[in-house]
């Protein structure tokens, strides 16, 4: 057996195993993206189950004075104001034990501030009345398809993720892309060596390429 043949066999075995293991690893992520694609494509989105509760939220005087007392806030620079709002957000998040991707700067308007705390399957909208020191928490449970939709859309292009859960899912989404690209390349390699599928495969590959180019031409040039 020549060295070349040994190398080819090892490469073939390695590619086959890579394709198999990589495919089995990402198959559940691909299902999430594929199923949510169909729903996003048609705007199918069931309203989430919603529950609302009101809870007491004591706010320390030093945090409060920096966000509602005009004698203090009027002299603040935008940076100082942002820091004061952030202190309020941190206090709300810690006191109410909220976990997730937080949206909301903590700006107080008419004695109220609002936060959205989102994680896959669950979004909490927290409206805080800083004068009465109460928080109205609206919980939205998104269900199976809503969670898939959330995972498909996040992290997304519009906001840098802050929460470790979103960052971790971002890594998984990236990994899904890299593995998918690897699967397509290893798939082509493996197909080339299946003699009985070579001719039909070329026809199918060509048909796919022609339809892809034709659609892009219609979308962007014609």
């Amino acid at each position, binding site marked *: 057996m020549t060295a070349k043949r040994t190398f080819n066999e090892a490469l073939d075995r390695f590619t086959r195993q890579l394709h198999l293991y990589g495919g089995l690893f990402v198959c559940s*992520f691909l299902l999430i993206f*594929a199923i949510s694609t169909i729903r996003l494509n048609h705007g199918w989105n069931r309203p989430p189950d919603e529950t609302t509760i009101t809870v007491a939220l004591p706010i320390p005087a030093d945090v409060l004075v920096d966000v509602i007392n005009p004698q203090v806030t009027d002299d603040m620079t935008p940076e100082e104001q942002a820091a004061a709002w952030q202190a309020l957000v941190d206090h709300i998040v810690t006191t109410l034990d909220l976990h997730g991707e937080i949206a909301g700067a903590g700006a107080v308007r008419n004695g109220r501030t609002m936060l959205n705390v989102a*994680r896959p399957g669950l979004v909490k909208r927290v409206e805080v009345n800083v004068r009465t020191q109460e928080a109205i928490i609206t919980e939205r449970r998104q269900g199976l398809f809503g969670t898939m939709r959330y995972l498909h859309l996040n992290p997304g292009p519009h906001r840098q993720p802050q929460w470790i859960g979103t960052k971790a899912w971002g890594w998984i989404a990236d990994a899904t892309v890299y593995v998918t690209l690897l699967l397509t390349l290893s798939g082509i390699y493996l197909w080339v060596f299946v003699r009985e599928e070579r001719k039909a495969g070329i026809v199918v590959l060509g048909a796919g390429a022609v339809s892809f180019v034709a659609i892009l031409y219609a979308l962007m040039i014609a």
Partner: protein
Amino acid sequence: MQTPRRPASIKKWNRRIHIWLGLYMLLFLWVIAVSGLFMNHPGWFNAQPVRTSVEQTVMMPDAVTDLEKATDIMDQLGITGEVLIRGNTPEGKFNFTCVRPNLRQFVSVDLATFNATLQLVDLQLVGTLGDLHTFTGVRGIYREPNSIRDWLPTRIWSFSMDAVAIGVILMVLTSLYMGWQRLKVHPLGSMASFALGIIVTVYFMWGLAWLG
């Protein structure tokens, strides 16, 4: 003496479907995968859209619906694309947007002078890839009161996305069948990689909501 050809078994057909689907969808998958990656990392590129503007006098059509009016004006301006009509047109204007994955075309017609301003925003390569990823014609972000796909290429692209999604699901099912077939050959690696994917999926689908 020639032996009669045996019909292909389920195993063969499964592999054939897997190969054919994969090859047919190859370019679609590359675009969707790469654009998804780029959308997750907007900071990787800093390609700014290129904006230009032209003005032209148009005849205001006597059409009944806003979509018909927009389509007529688009013919006069020589532009094509998916029409977006938002419900917040200012007094004395007829505004709409005509979108293609690589181009935003904002049209504003002054109803007193019939002067149409056409602002073109060329999204460049990265923006175009991102738009292809999300180009359905009926996105909530468009804020259209009555959202429909009014351009044939949008309908074709939207259909293609459905087809690719169904194709991916079939690819997964056929790969699971092949994985099952090869379980005896690679039991440990197959089970480990599949189980790892499932555990991670379950954690993100349900675990984060319940465990905190």
